[in-house]
């Protein structure tokens, strides 16, 4: 089987979705580590310095563009699978088993993923595009230091508006359920199902990626809303 054929099979496509998913998991971990600096009340020094570094380091920029491609790939292949899955059942059941035989979020990966995708577009337009292409106020933290963009203040401004906070929280709920199933599911797709490790995989998937990380992200706008 040629590579082109291999990755065109249903399992091949799932492997791509899983692999890109794993990559995105690692990204959210790093992203959260950076973002948590928004909570320091240091006038944005730590966060803005970090943002400036991330924005100027060429290796990171390269990875950042790769990241966007991975997101698009992940979404496109998953959508393609979703549509072919729907075609596989042209006449729906009048009555379905509902949650008796599977968890609702495992069946709603496409919905959760779509929420996330919309969220990501909003999020990128909001901060990433502004950071790179808009005129931002600058700030310098050291005497004679080079002025850097003050993304920190922008973030704090945005989240004064509860509407934005709600949008972000919804996005993170989507992320939570997407990862509770997605993390474990990707292991299964790669064939990694072993009674000795399933507990650990499940634990990490649910608690770290499904709960801690989304809460970590969501806590930032909520905290800002109540502390500005």
């Amino acid at each position, binding site marked *: *089987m040629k590579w082109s*054929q*291999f990755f065109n*099979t*249903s*399992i*091949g*496509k*799932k*492997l791509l979705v899983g692999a890109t998913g794993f990559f995105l998991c690692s990204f959210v971990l790093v992203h959260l580590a950076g973002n948590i600096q928004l909570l320091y009340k240091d006038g944005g020094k730590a966060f803005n310095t970090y943002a400036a570094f991330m924005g100027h380091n060429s290796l990171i920029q390269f990875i950042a563009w790769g990241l966007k491609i991975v997101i698009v790939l992940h979404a496109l292949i998953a959508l393609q*699978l979703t549509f*072919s*899955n729907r*075609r*596989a*059942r*042209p*006449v*729906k*059941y*009048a*009555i*379905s*088993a*509902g949650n*008796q*035989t*599977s*968890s609702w979020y*495992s*069946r709603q*990966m496409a919905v959760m993923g779509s929420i996330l995708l919309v969220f990501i577009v909003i999020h990128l337009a909001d901060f990433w595009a502004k950071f790179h292409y808009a005129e931002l106020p600058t700030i310098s933290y050291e005497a004679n230091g080079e002025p850097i963009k003050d993304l920190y203040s922008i973030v704090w401004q945005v989240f004064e508006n509860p509407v934005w906070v709600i949008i972000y929280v919804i996005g993170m709920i989507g992320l939570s359920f997407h990862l509770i*199933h997605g993390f*474990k*599911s990707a292991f*299964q*797709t*790669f*064939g*990694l*199902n072993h009674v000795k490790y399933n507990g650990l995989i499940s634990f990490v998937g649910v608690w770290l990626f499904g709960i801690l990380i989304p809460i970590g992200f969501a806590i930032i706008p909520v905290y800002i809303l109540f502390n500005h």
Partner: protein
Amino acid sequence: MNLTLKVWRQKNKNDQGRFETYQVQDISSEMSFLEMFDVLNERLINEGKEPIAFDHDCREGICGMCSMHINGRAHGPWAGTTTCQLHMRAFKDGDTITVEPWRASAFPVLKDLTVDRGAFDRIIEAGGYISVNTGNAVDANAIPIPKDKADAAFAAAACIGCGACVAACKNSSAMLFVSAKVSQLALLPQGDPERSTRALNMVAQMDKEGFGSCTNTGACEAECPKEISLTNIARLNREFIRSGFTYEK
């Protein structure tokens, strides 16, 4: 007990199909679900109507022929049970029961509750066997197989090919069926020579038949009358990856 049945009626492949409602009276809790259908059919015949066509044969849960989607569940509410082994004890007086055929583009409805599962045979044809002609075998005990491996192979081989996994899966995926056969043969040393081609060809055929892909929801395992485990799907994935990455052709 008295029950209301909503049953899918469809004259043939090309018919649109619709639900019809029937009242059945004096159903004993000792009856099997199919015996309840026998009673209804007997009545329909006496009334000069067409009986409901449904697949069934052994009525002891092993041939895999019966296939009803009952109140949203493949083979009905009991876990690990085929439609023919489901007994009316599972219901109570006054219940409304909705009965549909398996729904999947790969399983076209032939009539009423009868579907065509030929796709499963074609998947087996693609590699669900060990190529050993009659008379070529060595002595059976010349191939010792660890008990745990033999037991796992048996657990996978217990699949009855009824298609409940496809019916239960929101994607109409046949992965549990395919993985059961691939697992059985992958766990046994006899299956080794054809290991690479088997996984690749069976998956290719599965895709060709129009089954959906697996999103690991676990509904198939929950509905499988033989309780075939999801670990088999993981094993199929491993076999497929291994073959895809290493097989030279």
